[in-house]
């Protein structure tokens, strides 16, 4: 099954480009550590999922690029073409000249309706090129105007036009200390709207990735490119072909469906966080060895203690005693609804993941067997001899979400900037509806 990617706004397009780069470079890599046959199968599966064949032989990404200003798309298209390994379909993009001015209302209420038909036509064309459509993957930031506002609108349109398809929104959360002053408003509006139409939101926070770049990747002068490459690596570790639990010999044909089935048992809980281990600069890889028990131990503690990376983990945090009543859950303990661990590389089949099945990690209303899944693939990913990814539906994002809603509410109480939104048709009531939706989500995750 194939996935159609929709890249929205500057962030969405910049990241999308790095993702396809990472996928391509991984399948051409010689560090698969597996048989030629396995490698070819992996290669084919990835190609089917994300690329389509062209006469020239250069794989064409199954993607639609959308932005309200031309510079980023123009750059993205040419950079991809220059790589020689893959490219975008140069017809598959839509841009305007004006931009959305960081105004969610402009993206959602003005650009959305105005350009709906053109954009959806492009999506339809990409969908038709797929033998079997596995769903949509949208990439956007929630801080600006296009990715956030137009992104929310397009997601709604996707839901209306493809009611049976899976939609996964990859949402970038901005740095806490401002990239955009109205980022908290834009975030609240985006998240509340996406919650209605999307199947799940997979979140990356700029602050977290920045720390990974600084502390794990040892990058001195961190650029957005660096940040985007780490994000692309993490996404690749989830979306490259895997064998699912049900197994069989082939790679999973329905990645988005499998993801939703394992991680989103209830529509009230759609926020997914992502952790990846190990992460290090490429030139250190040759000198490092890891053991699976070590990696799994760290990953589990990262889950429990809500650590953002493998350094600085708080080892004091422990799950609550089995049999204890709910109110006595220890502080800082991250309760999960469902978790998915994806293992890639050497000796994956022997790895013991029992520690992730511990019922005390999970909320009580799901069977622990149903709450945890593991996908294992012997083919190594992106030169890492062993790597593990954790996709988690848990309280990972509770604090950041609460912080964003709190700041937005504080600003809303003073009515600052509201006139910029009402100008384009988003009223105070719309804000209140969004706040209510998100307070509900916060409340639901809090009482897990």
């Amino acid at each position, binding site marked *: 099954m194939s996935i159609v990617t929709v890249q929205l706004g500057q962030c969405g397009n910049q990241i999308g480009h790095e993702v396809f780069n990472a996928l391509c470079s991984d399948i051409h890599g010689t560090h698969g550590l597996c048989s030629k046959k396995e490698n070819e199968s992996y290669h084919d599966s990835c190609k089917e999922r994300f690329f389509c064949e062209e006469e020239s032989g250069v794989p064409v990404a199954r993607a639609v690029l959308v932005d309200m200003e031309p*510079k980023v798309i123009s750059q993205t298209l040419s950079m991809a073409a220059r790589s020689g390994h893959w490219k975008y379909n140069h017809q598959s993009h839509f841009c305007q000249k004006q*931009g959305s001015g960081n105004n969610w209302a402009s993206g959602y209420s003005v650009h959305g309706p105005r350009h709906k038909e053109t954009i959806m036509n492009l999506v339809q064309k990409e969908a038709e090129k797929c033998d079997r459509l596995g769903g949509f993957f949208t990439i956007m930031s929630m801080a600006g105007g296009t990715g956030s506002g137009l992104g929310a609108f397009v997601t709604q349109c996707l839901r209306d036009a493809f009611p049976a398809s899976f939609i996964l929104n990859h949402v970038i959360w901005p740095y806490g200390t*401002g*990239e955009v002053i109205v980022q908290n408003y834009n975030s609240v509006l985006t998240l509340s709207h996406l919650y209605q139409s999307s199947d799940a939101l997979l979140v990356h926070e700029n602050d977290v990735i920045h720390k990974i770049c600084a502390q794990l990747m040892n990058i001195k002068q961190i650029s957005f490119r660096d940040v985007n490459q780490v994000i692309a690596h993490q996404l690749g570790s989830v979306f490259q072909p895997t064998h699912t639990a049900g197994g069989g010999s082939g790679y999973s044909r329905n990645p988005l469906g499998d993801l939703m089935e394992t991680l989103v048992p209830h529509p009230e809980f759609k926020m997914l966080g992502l952790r990846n281990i190990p992460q290090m600069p490429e030139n250190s890889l040759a000198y490092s060895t890891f053991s699976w028990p070590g990696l799994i131990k760290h990953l589990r503690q990262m889950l429990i203690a809500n650590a953002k990376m493998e350094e600085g983990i708080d080892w004091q945090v422990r799950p609550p005693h089995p049999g204890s009543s709910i109110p006595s859950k220890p502080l800082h303990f991250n309760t999960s609804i469902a978790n998915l661990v994806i293992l890639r590389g050497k000796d994956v089949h022997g790895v013991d993941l029992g520690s992730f099945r511990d019922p005390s990690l999970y909320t009580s209303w799901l069977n622990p067997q149903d709450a945890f899944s593991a996908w294992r693939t012997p083919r190594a990913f992106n030169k890492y001899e062993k790597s593990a990814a954790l996709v988690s539906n848990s309280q990972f994002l509770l604090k950041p979400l609460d912080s964003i809603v709190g700041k937005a509410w504080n600003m809303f109480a003073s009515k600052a900037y509201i006139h910029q939104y009402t100008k384009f048709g988003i009223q105070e009531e719309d804000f209140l509806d969004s706040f209510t939706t998100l*307070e509900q989500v916060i409340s639901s995750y809090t009482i897990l």
Partner: protein
Amino acid sequence: AVSLPFAVGQCGNQVGCRFWDLALREHAAVNKKGIYDEALSSFFRNIDTRSGGNGPDIYEGKICSLKARALLIDMEEGVVNEILQGPLRDVFDSKQLITDVSGSGNNWAVGHKLYGCQYRENIVEKLRKTAEHCDCLQCFFIIHSMGGGTGSGLGTFVLNLLEEEFPEVYRFVTSVYPSGEDDVITSPYNSVLAMKELNEHADCVLPIENESLFDIVNKIHQMINSGKLGSAVKQNSLVTSSSGSAKTLQEKPFDAMNNIVANLLLNLTSSARFEGSLNMDLNEISMNLVPFPRLHYLVSSLTPLYTLADVNVPSRRLDQMFSDAFSRDHQLIQADPKHSLYLACALLVRGNVQVSDLRRNIERLKPSLPFVSWNQEGWKTGLCSVPPVGHSHSLLALANNTCVKPTFIELKDRFMKLYKKKAHLHHYLQVDGMEQSCFSEAVCSLSDLIEEYNELDATKDGPRIDPSRLKIAV
């Protein structure tokens, strides 16, 4: 997306002239292949001159003949004629000019009411024609001074017109405010009458004070003449310099100061023209920096003022550039933001600067900058890859800060001094359409604005009480 500058009056046109010159210089430095690209098209049309001066626009391919997208308006001919005889003569054509001979006599009413009425159709027609050539018009810039008659009166008339004809296009105004010792006696009248128009019809105003420009020019002179760094400075990097541009050696007295303003406008529009990892368009500036419609007066600072030419001298640390942006020496108006209240702040960085440099400096500077309680993290940032000519990096800071209040209070005081005595009032009232109520409404508008700033200032040292959140029934 196109930004369309309107230079109105003597000051406006002198600044405008510097702006076009430096814009050409900037694009020449970046555009090596001579191809007419998206960046150039935001300020210039590309005309096919083979069929004479009225050739069609060429949208792609080689640069043929560049024509500035602009309107030059003056009620005297001196300045505009000089531009048309100077090295920029091929950049403009007669269809972009609106001139008269007698000037406005430093009288806002003459500029606004008399000439406004007289030239309305002419202006609208030329405006529409100019706009037709733009495939996407994002923003108008008005460049003028507040203290005279044409720039102030006719300039604000044009502002009104722009709102009527193109209500969706943003209106940025760069206004040179008169100092206390301004030699035009009626400058307070002109300024306050113009302020009302700016309050009501501008999206963003960048007030500039000659004193600040003068101080910057002096600072640079001292630095060069002190002998310490003199020969080591890259001439074309000076924020005051015309070096490398089309202009000939004859530098006029205000050129250095006007170059500073021209550089402000170039930096402001850089992220809209050139690529970068975090673009900042003009509509984003308005969106992020204007929390309430009338509070749209922004304090601007430019840094660096120069770059050292000697590569063996270590370039000023990047962090120093950020610190300088918050130093009063680099501001274009006399104000004290650190002791007032920041409502919002934007940092537009150009050149080899990455997001980690931005973050590090914001973290470092934040504690010393008082922000309003509902916008504690109120930073808007942009990263443009292309630095200005002569520099490896630069920073433009725009702050919405209550420190503009004293400037407005002083203006009001100077106005009231004249108005109480009814000095020179008859010169205004004898103009058709001008009544005493124009004056009282104008000063009222200014008072209301000052009051809005007062209310915000009052929150400054008060206790911080966050409003309680919505409660959800479980």
